[in-house]
């Protein structure tokens, strides 16, 4: 089973890296960029075949390690 965990900074948390990327895109002349926030994507393969169990495992992974919930939100998706 394939899954994806997406970790993003909570709104209101300063993201200097996102700001730098935003500045670079603007200086490249890419049109219409209002703002950039950067995050992380984890593609995970699971042995589980049960979707609910897989989601529970991914949630545990995100809470315990993948995200720092003081500053980050995460989203868990089971892809197939």
């Amino acid at each position, binding site marked *: 089973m394939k899954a994806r965990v997406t970790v993003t900074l909570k709104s209101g*948390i300063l993201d*200097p890296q996102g700001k730098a990327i935003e500045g670079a895109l603007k200086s490249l002349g890419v049109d219409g960029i209002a703002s950039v926030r950067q995050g992380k994507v984890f593609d995970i393969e699971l042995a589980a075949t049960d979707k609910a169990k897989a989601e529970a495992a991914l949630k545990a992974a995100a809470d315990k390690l993948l995200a720092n919930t003081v500053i980050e939100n995460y989203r868990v998706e089971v892809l197939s």
Partner: protein
Amino acid sequence: MKSAVLVFPGINRERDMARALKLASGNETAMVWHAETALPKGTDLVVVPGGFSYGDYLRCGAIAARAPVMDAVRDFAAKGGLVLGVCNGFQILCESGLLPGVLMRNAGLKFVCRDVHMKVERSDTPFTRGYNAGQVIRVPVAHGEGNYEADEETLKRLEGDGRVLYRYCSADGVVDEASNFNGAAHSIAGIVNERGNVLGMMPHPENHVEEIMGCTDGRGLFAGLVQQFEKAA
């Protein structure tokens, strides 16, 4: 004072720390590998040193914070044992939940490696008793992620309870924007937990303890810790 310095893969300041501790206490320091599940018997002080544990992968300190030895450190801290985290060690303590908040990328995005000044906010703690309240000391920093952030409520509590022990300042002790080189909230350089027995700080006092280093302002921190145990004994 019996100290234990934790060693994680990618840590690089553990020997500096052991040397500073030995200089202050006269005792050999135990080096404790991250896979250990217990601290040496009779440990008075646990130090989480600086460096780049696990290459700073995922988030600085995130993987080290989940190492087996950290459960022993949590037990030790829960019983009132003194824990000091410096630089990556501060990041590890925040990630492990022993200290509140988080260390974000420096506001200027640059890795900063130079001497800075910080003000000792109070002298009535085990981690500051070697200094006078208000004293300004010069210490080296070397980090890319030292920008301390926490939610408003946490910052209010830290300030209200006097848990900010060290704050970045100018050479003459003025806490201002110019001296806050990494953008830390309230110019925070070092904080303690609620109980006051766990300190995390970004600067490296262990690198300013001998004449040959050009400055000995870091000695006070170690001398104060040693005094603490002399008093207890």
